[in-house]
């Protein structure tokens, strides 16, 4: 079971490395969106510090969503998805592997860059740590829930816009607790509570979402 998940992750990472443009463009999207906000809002440090958690999190959410339409589309187009669905193990395991791979190329880099971008907002060291930690813990849930949206809209016209419509309402708890963790740290309340709720959301969605996504993929393959 673990070897299968590892095999899927390895393959998807290899593919992502051969086609870096996707990954890089999502990261640049994140950087640009976050950097645009101070220009739009003005340079007052107090205001920026207050807005930073929300801005970083919304940008991370949008950047994650940017790469969702391709999560299954490539495998669907070239017939690999059929073969994966026909392999003698549950499709949910394969999807789990794909979700983890998606997080490794989309969520993880964002978490690593976020503290650097947080500097633009004059955040303290603890706040920067909270930014990294919350994005690190929260983005797997985004990949998991996003996989359901990607599977449901597989092969549809205007799939990209539809994904955002389906997935964004479901992202709200992650956004609330993610940005809340940073906010609580900034205001000195301590973000542990938020972070543990975020971790709970992530565990729940990593455990549950791949199976729902697998069911959606089977519907799409009929």
């Amino acid at each position, binding site marked *: 079971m673990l070897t299968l998940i590892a095999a899927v992750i390895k393959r998807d990472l290899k593919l992502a490395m051969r086609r870096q443009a996707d990954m890089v463009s999502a990261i640049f999207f994140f950087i640009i969106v976050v950097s645009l906000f101070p220009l739009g809002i003005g340079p007052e440090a107090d205001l920026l510090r207050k807005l930073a958690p929300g801005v970083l999190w919304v940008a991370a959410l949008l950047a994650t969503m940017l790469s969702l339409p391709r999560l299954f589309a490539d495998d669907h187009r070239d017939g690999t998805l059929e073969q994966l669905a026909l392999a003698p193990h549950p499709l949910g395991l394969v999807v789990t592997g794909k979700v983890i791979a998606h997080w490794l190329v989309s969520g993880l880099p964002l978490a690593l860059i976020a503290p650097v971008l947080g500097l633009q907002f004059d955040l303290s060291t603890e706040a920067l740590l909270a930014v990294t930690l919350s994005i690190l813990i929260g983005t797997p849930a985004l990949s998991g829930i996003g996989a*359901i949206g990607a599977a*449901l*809209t597989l092969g*549809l*016209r*205007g*799939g990209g816009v*539809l994904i955002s*419509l*389906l997935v*964004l*309402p*479901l992202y*709200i*708890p992650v956004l*609330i*607790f993610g940005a*809340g963790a940073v906010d609580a740290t900034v205001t000195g309340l301590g973000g542990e509570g938020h972070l543990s709720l975020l971790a709970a*959301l992530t565990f729940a969605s990593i455990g*549950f979402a791949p199976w*729902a996504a697998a*069911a*959606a993929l089977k*519907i*799409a393959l*009929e």
Partner: protein
Amino acid sequence: MTDRFNLYRFSSPATFYPLAGAMIPYFVAVSALFGIAGLWLGMLVAPTDFQQGEGYRIIFIHVPASWMSMFIYLVMAFWAAIGLAFNTRLSGMMAQALAPTGALMAFLSLWTGALWGKPMWGAWWVWDARLTSELILLFLYIGYMALTAAIDDVRRADKAGGLLLLVGVVNIPIIYFSVKWWNTLHQGSSVNLAKSSMATTMLWGMLLMAMCFWMYSIAMALMRVRTIMLERERHTDWVKKLIAGDEK
């Protein structure tokens, strides 16, 4: 050799279509009766609220609309579960027939909520937990309708929509509690309605209006499901016969 589940017969469109047609007038009539009674009690008899004056009378539509918007989503999820489990054709049609009415209820809930909020809280919109959750519910309805509309194959549309509904139903409590919690953390904008002991006439008015909305929603869903049935079953003999009969 049809050893299918017995439900299948009842849920066969050919049986259900005339049945639905016969039931619609009754639901409309009952809805109208409840509406008249509710409005009479709520608008004419019920006393002034000592805190909110006459403005509170908006609850006679606001609360029923909010209830229905949530209830209809649950009913859709119920049909979705039936459809995915037993592969009945009717379930998907019912879910699709209910969705626009549910979305309208969510819209009415938001609209009346805003009109209530302005005099009571001084703002058309506050990021109150209930209003925010209702807005998200409206998005969920729109997402469902957009997804089913984007899929050409009706079977796939039913199944994919059903799956989305089930995922949504699991998420609604999580969304609701997270929004509620977020709201209490960011105090200031939220104005809690002081709990006033409601006069019994008000309560009755509200319940009657809720029944009116309920019956109305059933009538609308039945009307819509009949059209969906004709469209989807256009190649079957019973629809052809029916259509040919209409021609005369």
